[in-house]
């Protein structure tokens, strides 16, 4: 499988570069890691930007940053993954519909509430008439976008696609996540004692991917695999062994694992499985959200490009990782594996 990355762009909390006070598993308080919003005018015309919602602006900013990094003006296609879409505008339209008893007049929130508005606004901004799609499937939203890119580039290896993910957190959404009635049933990001596993998070990241290696390529995605396991095993080592033995995912020579898990015992078992590879529980830096694998892929790119000493992570003995495994699971039903290597 050939998927070369030659450009990246992201909006996130800026971790782990800044020495911020990280809140996560150890904290009992309700905590959130929000994106630090950039100065948008670097990549978006302020006149255009004023009309856009926050999630679309962040997505468009990251997308243009990735294209500029890859020195590409128009990609051959755009694919976005978003698990919950444009929550701010969905909430806004819903609230006014209810409060005004179905007698509203402005369509602007409705227009920006649709999941595909992120990919679509990127296409409008960069004038891309090529392939355009949006995936929204819980813990597989970004992974499906990557798999689609694999299929598209397999059929046309000379093409280059812009792939990314965007998810946002809103106060209204946080109120729901905090509600004990909801938390008890969803179990999302809580342990059995209703303590948060990680901060709730959000973020956007885009990647310029091509089917062939170019001068600017700095890493290669070697596999993307999703496992939908309704009654699945939650033993990470068994999942990894099955992935390699049954599904042929090449897991040789992994020297760093970016794990979406929160259990230190799992982390040591994973490390042992890879003969002492470093294991980083990456959600400490981006929080828990359903497209967080896009953050982990972005972090992998930064590590390959700038060196691990530029990021403040404890990577164990992996001082110069050559092959990274990103391993995430949502509700033990949505398991995803991405392997990426230096080129």
């Amino acid at each position, binding site marked *: 499988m050939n998927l070369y990355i030659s450009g990246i762009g992201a909006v996130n909390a800026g971790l782990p570069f800044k020495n911020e006070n990280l809140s996560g598993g150890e904290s009992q308080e309700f905590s959130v890691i929000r994106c630090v919003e950039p100065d948008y005018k670097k990549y978006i015309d302020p006149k255009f930007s004023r009309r856009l919602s926050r999630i679309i602006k962040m997505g468009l900013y990251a997308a243009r940053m990735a294209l500029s990094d890859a020195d590409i003006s128009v990609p051959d296609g755009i694919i976005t993954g978003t698990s919950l879409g444009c929550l701010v505008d969905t909430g806004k339209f819903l609230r006014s519909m209810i409060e005004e008893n179905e007698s509203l007049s402005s369509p602007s929130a409705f227009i920006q509430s649709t999941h595909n508005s992120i990919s679509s606004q990127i*296409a409008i901004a960069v004038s891309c*008439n090529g392939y355009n799609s949006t995936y929204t499937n*819980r813990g597989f939203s970004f992974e499906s976008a990557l798999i689609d890119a694999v299929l598209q580039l397999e059929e046309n290896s000379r093409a280059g696609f812009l792939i990314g993910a965007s998810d946002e957190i809103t106060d209204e959404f946080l109120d729901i996540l905090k509600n004990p009635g909801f938390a008890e049933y969803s179990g999302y990001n809580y342990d059995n004692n209703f303590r948060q596993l990680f901060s709730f998070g959000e973020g956007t990241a885009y990647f310029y991917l091509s089917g062939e290696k170019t001068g600017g390529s700095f890493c290669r995605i070697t596999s993307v695999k999703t496992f939908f396991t309704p009654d699945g095993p939650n033993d990470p080592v068994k999942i990894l062994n099955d992935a390699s033995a049954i599904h042929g995912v090449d897991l040789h020579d992994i020297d760093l694992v970016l794990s979406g898990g929160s259990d230190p015992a799992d982390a040591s078992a994973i490390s042992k499985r890879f003969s002492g590879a470093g294991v980083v529980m990456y959600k400490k830096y981006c929080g828990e959200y359903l497209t967080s694998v896009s953050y982990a892929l972005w972090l992998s790119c930064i590590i390959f490009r700038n060196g691990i000493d530029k990021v403040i992570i404890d990577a164990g003995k992996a001082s110069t990782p050559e092959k990274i495994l990103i391993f995430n699971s949502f509700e033990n039903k949505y398991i995803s594996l991405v392997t990426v290597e230096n080129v």
Partner: protein
Amino acid sequence: MKQRVFITGIGIISAIGRSADETINSLCSCNTGISGMRFLDSRLKDIFPVGEVKYSNSDLSDMLSVHENKYSRTFLLSLAAAREASGDRLKDYNPARVGYVSGNTVGGMDLTEKYFQSLHSGGEADITSLLQHDCGYSAQKAAECLNISGYVTTISTACSSSANSIMHAAMLIRSGVIDAAVAGGVDSLTKFTLNGFNSLKILDTQLCSPFDENRNGLNLGEGAAYLFLESEKSASDHMQDVICEVKGFGNSCDAFHQTAMSEDGMGPKLAMRGALKSSGLEPRDIHYINLHGTGTSNNDLSEGISIEDVFTGTIPPYSSTKSYTGHTLGAAGAIEAVISALTIKNGIIFPNINYKTRMKELSADPVSSLLKTNDIRNVMSNSFGFGGNNSSIIYSKVV
């Protein structure tokens, strides 16, 4: 050598019936399913006709024997159509080699809006209903009910969502990632979408008349449709009867405006030409086009002009079946895929009802009475969405 992708099962529920058989009966008798609202409790009830599925949620739960939860209408509709498409065959397939690929825009908004409405009026509200809010919920639950585990995903590209899900599933099968898939889409009527489309001022207060000079907007509909897709090898290994094949497809973005299509139809043209190219067909090889044909001034003009351009001199018969089902948004591409399959299988082109006057910009009329012909080998189905997400798929008779 890439695998060919065959359609060996179809399932559909919409305003015109809850099976492929009921659907073809309604289509052949030119009976529209669009009428006044019975189940959606909206203040706009008496203003806009809709293509509502004629069963309440509790009827649907009974039919499907799913009572363990208060399910969203979106999930119930999707399970009804997905079960019909797959029948009892899944027991003979390896669940790890079968995918579930859905298209959807509204998720469990029917439950979400009730929840917030209750909160607003100080009533009882069950917050667990929000667990079904996202678009991925219905795919997860349906895949679990069908015991499918090879691959699960959902696409949301507005009104072309399920055309893209069929396309994605076909590519997964073609490249051997999976052998078979239940692919299609679903959307249920909600106050959210009804009010959204009303705020855009594109809803007709009368029955819609797609491609008519005096068209006045669309009627919203709801429903679900799924195809059972499988590789040629899988179909032969499982001795399935083949209905037709997914011959080729095109996807493009108009990149013009979030809710309006460019007048020159740049995106639609690219999608149709892409579908022809990927099928290895010429415009003259297409024997019927199932139009996106929503009945809005903008869509029908842009689509009509693009067809005149792509099919210069060889415009095939075309019609919009949204005059029966209403515009079912994320389900439309799949509902029209099933109708295209029925056209190929039975040699019948279903007419565009409510059509009177030719659009002044066009040189052809849509088919306006039932047309039987044995020579329908290749059908093009168009699905164009907000955000400029345009897709076109060609379904072909297997010879």
